[in-house]
């Protein structure tokens, strides 16, 4: 294994060593830090917004309004007017409502990309950790190779294979996370393997399957949650990058921040807010998840317990 993967891996493994029993303890410490609270507040507001936005959006985000279209030309996109807080977008739709609903679609992409990454990663890592031996070597070799391809290129290669759709983006972005989660879970389970309670269970003759599912897996979940929080942030950014490169979702009506940002790049001189607002939304949300994830990671890190 190369040092890069070693390094990425070390980072992942150090997180893995934590375990859940420590995690609860760490969690309590986490939320004493103002940084973590800030992250939690941002993420909380974002999730609430995502849930309620379809109900609070003042206008239908998926249809054009004659009032907005009245003054719309390629070099003049109407700004704020009564009833339309942020005016029009390039298609005569209500920009403010789309921005609100964008939270939901963005969360959708982020969550599903992460979930799929976690699931596939955990299956690989779990198999490796549970079986060990050659299964472990083979699967870990595979994840190392995935880690050795620059992440965006990995996503690009996958996105280029499929027609542009929301699921294409989700899957392409999810693949970035797969090797990370695989390593993480495997590391955590390896650490569990030699831990006292697993040894005790083995000595008592508990079946291997029971040990894996009752003891090893539950105790390994903490680090995965931390990493998933961090991955959510990068998933949202990576999805936006794919849109920017023209490999994004091809549903032009969909209100999703990354897509809105990608579509607005040519309109910077007409109405910069069409790009700026989605961009700021992405930055704030990504920051929220990063702050939260980093604080949890730091409190999980055994070194910081001195």
């Amino acid at each position, binding site marked *: *294994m190369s040092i890069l993967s070693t390094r990425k891996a070390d980072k992942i493994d150090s997180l893995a060593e934590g375990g859940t029993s420590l995690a609860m303890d760490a969690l309590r410490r986490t939320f004493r830090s103002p940084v973590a609270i800030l992250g939690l507040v941002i993420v909380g507001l974002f999730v609430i917004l995502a849930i309620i936005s379809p109900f609070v959006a003042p206008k239908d985000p998926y249809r054009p309004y004659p009032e907005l279209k009245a003054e719309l030309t390629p070099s003049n996109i109407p700004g704020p007017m009564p009833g339309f807080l942020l005016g029009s977008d390039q298609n005569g739709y209500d920009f403010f409502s789309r921005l609100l609903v964008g939270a939901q679609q963005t969360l959708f992409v982020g969550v599903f990309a992460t979930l799929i990454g976690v699931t596939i990663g955990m299956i690989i890592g779990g198999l490796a950790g549970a079986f060990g031996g050659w299964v472990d070597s083979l699967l870990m070799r595979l994840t190392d190779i995935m880690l*050795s391809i620059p992440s965006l290129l990995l996503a690009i290669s996958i996105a280029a294979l499929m027609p542009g759709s929301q699921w294409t983006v989700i899957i392409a972005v999810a693949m970035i996370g797969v090797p990370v989660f695989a390593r993480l879970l495997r590391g955590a389970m390896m650490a569990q393997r030699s831990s006292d309670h697993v040894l005790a269970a083995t000595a008592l003759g508990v079946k291997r399957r029971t040990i894996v599912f009752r003891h090893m897996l539950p105790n390994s979940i903490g680090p995965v949650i931390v990493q998933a929080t961090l991955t959510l942030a990068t998933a949202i950014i990576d999805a936006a990058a794919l849109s920017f490169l023209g490999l994004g979702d091809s549903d032009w009506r969909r209100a999703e921040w990354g897509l809105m940002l990608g579509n607005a790049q040519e309109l910077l001189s007409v109405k910069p807010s069409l790009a700026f607002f989605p961009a700021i939304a992405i930055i704030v949300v990504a920051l929220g998840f990063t702050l939260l994830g980093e604080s949890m990671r730091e409190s999980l890190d055994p070194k910081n317990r001195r």
Partner: protein
Amino acid sequence: MLRFTVRRLLQAVPTLFVLSILVFAWLRLLPGGPATALLGDKATPERVAAMNEVLGLDDPLYVQYFGFLGRILTGDFGNSLITGDPVMEEVSWAFPATLELSVAAMFLAVLFGIPMGYIAARFRGRFLDNATVVTTLVGVAVPVFFLGFLLKYIFTQEMSLLPPSGRQDVLIDATRVTGIATLDGLLTGEFDATWDAMLHLILPAVALASIPFAVIVRITRASVLDVQGEDFVRTANSKGLTTQIVRKRHVLRNALLPVSTTIGLQTGLLMSGAVLTEKVFAWGGLGTLLEQAIQQRDYPRLQGLILLFATVFVLVNLLVDLSYAIIDPRVRVR
């Protein structure tokens, strides 16, 4: 050391081997199959059939694969569908541009990242530290391409300070030596060409530097904190050495070891970032080639570039491993 080198080299081989299989399979998974993809717009059923024969697509897969492997080993990646030029030739024109941009970005990231990381560590827990940590987290949260747009908006549209895109003024008739614009000017004595190239380089380099910068700050900070807690530092302190000397000779020097190796590890991030940055600034390097290839579905070029990126990445990792082993002998036995 020799044994270690050989072992690492041998370990890189299977990785590259598997990668070549993946890229080979990838091309065969593309919608319409390789012949259609390669023929692009001109694909008629007859031409596809003819092409399949030329490509030997009727042969067993393993025969095809080794043929493909043989070609790429001799550097034959086929011709771009956009320009008709050999992919390797295009790469040789574009590579210096990307190299220049990446090196400049890394230079900036190191120049500002290490001092900031060190300062953050020295003021651990205080305002300066928190501010630095939050800054780096913001740096990671801002999409690179958006940062590029923002910089362009401020420095070219609003302030008209710097050129918005490209590598050099069109009217500067610079002699091409290495293809690295800033260097060529110095080599040939065309200083105005260098000056102009540097002005063009600033914004994209800053945009691209944002993420490695954040990483370097954080690693420096963590590493300095680590070293500060080590016994030899405590010893040095208790020996009565001045804080200055302890910091300089013991803390900083030891803390920089891991930092120096992470620099090499940023290659992957730089490559991902370069694709985006080069698009924003119409830089004309490998990233631009890749982006065009995506837009126009230039599969031979796409295949060549992905393989090239991955190979460079693996090789850089190898170099980093070797340099790490030189610095820290313990690694060799791991």
